């Protein structure tokens, strides 16, 4: 995708990814840095390591890769990558601390000093507190109906939802590509059988599948990702297969064949790169689709388990308050959801538009729209 102009949607999507990656350090009850008893440590990082260290590392690697690809200024690029590596190191070596020969005490709090999963007990013990609490200096967006900081929950929900959406889309992409490739290349019996499988899956009522699956598998992000990936790959596989069939008689394919390329060489070198064109936008739509589906699952009580937050869970919670005319708790996650879906849709649209032959021609002429 190099050389393509990053659209506004793509920028927004990337910003969201960065925020999500850094969320555990943006909002945490634990101080980012603490100097006590002559040792400097990072309790916030330790908390990350204890809850979901592995996913934090993946997130950091993701944004580090992004920084390496996108940042032009070398100094800046190095600084960002070093900072990220440092965070990763803190997560990896959770108990690490630096001995400092000083008796001074010092703590650097996170910008949002609340954890997403803990009710504000002090606030709750005040007799005048009504739940959900509205915005205040203490809780910038107020609290949810259990007295937990809404902003902290929102940011963590963003992270969890993106994680689910991105991972599900990635699974869908990989499986879809593989199956599409197999169908498009091998044809015949393989194609027939795989297409029947795809049709069966496409025609199957998902709700039913979901309800049954969740009675066997543990609830949580892993299951959600697997399930949404399972739901998503068929569309991509059909798409890839369609492109393969369409391009089978294209001149460049015939030329490659005439030059003696094997079936797989043609498929891998010539067909696949061309077939990918419509797949990229489909994948960004798949992310958005997975987010909406995640909301649905949360509604069913099959979302991420309490006390974790996801946008779907927040929205489901808020929707229950809607009947009272209490719109705030719906509005906040809706806006976040709209932002993500918009960002990914806009990105997908732009990808789609820019992959038409005319756009390619325009781009070649260096012409802007």
């Amino acid at each position: 995708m190099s050389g393509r102009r990053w659209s506004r949607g793509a920028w927004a999507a990337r910003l969201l990814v960065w925020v999500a990656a850094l969320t555990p350090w943006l909002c945490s009850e634990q101080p980012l840095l603490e100097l006590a008893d002559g040792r400097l440590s990072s309790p916030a990082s330790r908390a990350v390591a204890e809850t979901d260290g592995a996913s934090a590392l993946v997130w950091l690697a993701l944004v580090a890769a992004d920084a390496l690809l996108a940042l032009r200024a070398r100094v800046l690029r190095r600084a960002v990558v070093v900072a990220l590596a440092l965070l990763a190191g803190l997560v990896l070596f959770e108990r690490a601390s630096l001995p400092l020969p000083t008796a001074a005490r010092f703590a650097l709090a996170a910008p949002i000093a609340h954890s997403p999963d803990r009710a504000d007990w002090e606030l709750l013990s005040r007799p005048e507190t009504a739940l959900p609490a509205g915005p205040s200096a203490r809780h910038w967006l107020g609290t949810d109906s259990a007295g937990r900081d809404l902003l902290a929950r929102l940011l963590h929900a963003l992270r969890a939802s993106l994680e689910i959406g991105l991972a599900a889309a990635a699974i869908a992409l990989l499986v879809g590509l593989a199956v599409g490739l197999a169908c498009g290349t091998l044809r015949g019996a393989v194609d027939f059988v795989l297409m029947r499988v795809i049709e069966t899956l496409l025609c199957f009522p998902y709700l039913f599948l979901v309800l049954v699956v969740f009675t066997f598998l543990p609830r949580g992000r892993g299951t959600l990702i697997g399930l949404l990936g399972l739901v998503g790959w068929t569309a991509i596989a059909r798409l890839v297969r369609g492109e393969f069939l369409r391009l089978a008689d294209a001149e460049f394919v015939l030329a490659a064949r005439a030059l003696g390329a094997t079936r797989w060489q043609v498929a891998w070198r010539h067909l696949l790169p061309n077939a990918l064109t419509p797949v990229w936008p489909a994948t960004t739509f798949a992310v958005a689709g997975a987010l909406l589906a995640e909301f649905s699952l949360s509604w069913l009580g099959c979302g991420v388990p309490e006390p974790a937050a996801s946008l779907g869970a927040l929205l489901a919670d808020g929707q229950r308050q809607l009947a009272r005319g209490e719109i705030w708790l719906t509005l906040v996650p809706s806006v976040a959801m709209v932002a993500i879906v918009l960002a990914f849709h806009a990105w997908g649209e732009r990808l789609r538009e820019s992959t038409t032959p005319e756009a390619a021609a325009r781009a070649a002429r260096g012409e802007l729209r």
Partner: protein
Amino acid sequence: MRFLLRRLLFGLPTLLGITLLTFALSRLAPGGPLSDLLDPEQGRAVTKEQLAATEKLLGFDRPLHEQYGAWLSSALRFDFGRSLTSDRRPVAEKIAAAAAVSLELQGAAVVLLYGLGIPLGVFAAARAGTRRERCLAALLFVLQAMPTVVIGALLLILFARGPFAWLPLAGLETPGAEPAAPLARALDHARHLVLPVACLVLSGISGIALYARAGVLEALRQPWIRAARARGLPEWRVRYVHALKSGILPLVALLGGLLPWLVGGSVAVETLFSLPGLGRLTIDSIAARDYPTVMALTLLVAAATWLGFLLADLLHAALRRGEVDA
């Protein structure tokens, strides 16, 4: 024709696979159709012996492949048995009653979706880049990102009181109304449909409009549009006749994809507005582990989905041929 026949034949293993999968999954789901008898909140809980006796009575103790075979052989004769819930009505009767509600609802929604969505999309494409178009696109994107449940709940709040309170919130007719003239009844019925259909349209329109917009935009870029312009055709004719013609073709094919939606009903809307449609029936049957109803519904929706694909493919093929002819 041979193509059609072949596709129809291919459909059989798919449908068979679906029923098999549904059957297996429904039996795997924990808590069978009788487990509500264990709920002590609904009266005296039944003993395990009694439960086993009833299971035997209903044939649940037989091997699974036998049960599936029995289901299949009667399904082939279009006999889907009786519901296992306490109403014990024939499954076909239950589904037919619910389908009438859903088809009316979704049918009205589809007509409106196309009737409103396509002009919106063409408008957006024609004005691409203007501020007005951007506002419209943003609005459509926001609608697309909102789950149907949320849209419905907002509608309910907005229309429950105030100047719009004349719109009914639940059901399909005013209960207790004296038997009135057919016209008055039809009007009453239509009033009940307004909010649910509005909810469906709002939640689906952005998909159609954005799709139409993309199609028309793409068409406008085609060389033959340039050729048409070069021939000196008026701009409105280029946009609204030529571009639209090819731009909305894919939307027609999209209709095929809407078939299962038409048949499946909408759980969100049917729950929010208390309508006895297929969506509710599906959910209730799954919750009640009402095997015969679940099986029949799955088969129905699967067949519709599959037919939808077939339809979409046929339309695609027909359209492509049309393009070539043009």
